[in-house]
């Protein structure tokens, strides 16, 4: 339950300060253009969910719960399980988030997270069939944004991927044998960049997002292949910028994968 954010309001002084720093490759919180804020991943925060992860990126906090239930497959894919992703920008997280059904921002967020997971074939959907055409496992990925301080895309994506890796298929609950982990094939990582003036920086903070002209999210897999992208904002990127962002996203993505998503 949540809805759109109205425009972020930021003072002129702050705006020009961020812009001025950006020209010389600096940021208000002393990060370099390619530095993420500190990341923390806590798996299994919600014991009642089949999988969950609480992720903070700086002070942005996102909780993802994964529920795995039995249901019918889609008629056009009788031999595949189902993934459903939903994001709630709950009104606790920011003064501009309002109660109500998801607005365009929440829907975009859910769809971009979903795309990274789906297109990277993170989960082997063929393995989620119980009875072809009749019964399959449905994997619900519910994103609850608890505190909004910028870059919801990467925080939500990381939380969703970590929660899926932490999730069990509840066979025992349905008297079907022992619980098993989800069939994970790939591990996608999302990396988001903001453009401020001519400067480009990763993992934008709330203030940086408030003044950025454009945003680009790149999801890569463990081989560095691009699996999903989403550009946002009214501004634009040049071809060179896009190429450089993709290359850097794969590098940073691989580092995040190693540090926070390594199985074991």
């Amino acid at each position: 339950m949540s809805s759109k954010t109205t425009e972020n309001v930021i003072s002129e002084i702050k705006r020009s300060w961020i812009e001025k720093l950006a020209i010389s490759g600096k940021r208000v919180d002393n990060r370099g253009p390619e530095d993420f804020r500190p990341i923390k991943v806590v798996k299994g925060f919600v014991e009642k969910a089949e999988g969950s992860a609480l992720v903070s990126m700086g002070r942005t906090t996102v909780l993802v719960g994964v529920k795995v239930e039995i249901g019918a497959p889609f008629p056009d894919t009788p031999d595949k399980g189902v993934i459903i992703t939903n994001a709630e920008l709950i009104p606790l997280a920011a003064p501009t988030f309002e109660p109500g059904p998801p607005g365009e921002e929440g829907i975009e967020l859910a769809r971009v997270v979903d795309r990274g997971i789906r297109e990277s074939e993170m989960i082997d959907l063929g393995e989620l069939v119980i009875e072809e055409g009749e019964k399959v496992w449905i994997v619900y990925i519910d994103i609850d944004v608890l505190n909004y301080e910028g870059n919801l895309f990467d925080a939500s994506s990381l939380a969703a991927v970590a929660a899926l890796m932490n999730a069990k298929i509840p066979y025992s609950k349905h008297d079907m044998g022992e619980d098993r982990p989800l069939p994970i094939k790939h591990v996608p990582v999302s990396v988001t960049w903001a453009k401020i003036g001519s400067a480009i920086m990763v993992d934008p903070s709330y203030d940086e997002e408030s003044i950025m002209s454009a945003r680009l999210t790149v999801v890569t897999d463990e081989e560095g292949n691009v699996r999903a992208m989403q550009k946002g904002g009214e501004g634009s990127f040049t071809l060179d910028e896009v190429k450089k962002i993709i290359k850097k996203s794969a590098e940073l993505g691989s580092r995040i994968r190693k540090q926070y998503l390594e199985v074991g």
Partner: protein
Amino acid sequence: MEEIKLMDEEGRRIDGRRPDELRPIKMKVGVLTRADGSAYLQWGKNKVLAAVYGPREVFPKHLQDPERALLRARYNMASFSVEERKRPGPDRRSIELSKVISEALRAAVFVEQFPKTSIDVFIEILQADAGTRIAGLVAASAALADAGIPMKDLVTGMTVGKVEDTLILDLCKEEDNYGQADLPIAIIPRTGEIVLLQMDGHMTQEEIDRALDMAIRGAMKVYEIQKRALLERYERLVREKEYIADISEV
């Protein structure tokens, strides 16, 4: 449903507690950066987050009251907070709970000090395990205090119930589902006012008398936990100006 034994011969409850024993409760105040006040509460397996925004401009504007602040609490359960996934959005239960929680908080807040504004209280149940309305209210009241909103006192509460004809405090999930009665109550300790009271099940008048006394004694323990969490928050803030508690470390 097969018979579930909720109390053994020694008077121990299904989770091993004595009749008047509470589940472990932990609380942190000041856990969110954008809200004016916030609190996180772990009560047994319940995990509850509350945030306060305001006093701020009323939206939609026609709800504005020239005499007092409009205090609105919204109780919401995360989809993954319960055994079977809950569809997002309000259902009839959460709408009712939002109403009784709002009314309980209004009784404590000096709403007349902030005419034409709104004070928005948001309660998010991250994990539910019986007693979430009281847990939500307790967290919300601490979040209001954290936001610096003037109140008569904190609002605190407790649930009392009955299993195997014995009165018990702070029901767990099984006792809530299969017990004989369930009575949530919230009070303003300083004035003794009862500001939330619900009951379902079956109790004699004599049992109700004892249940209420028991519940209030239990609620006073929760009150101490709320006060301690607030104190801890502000002691910490003196040393670390931008301190925000981490809910994963509770």
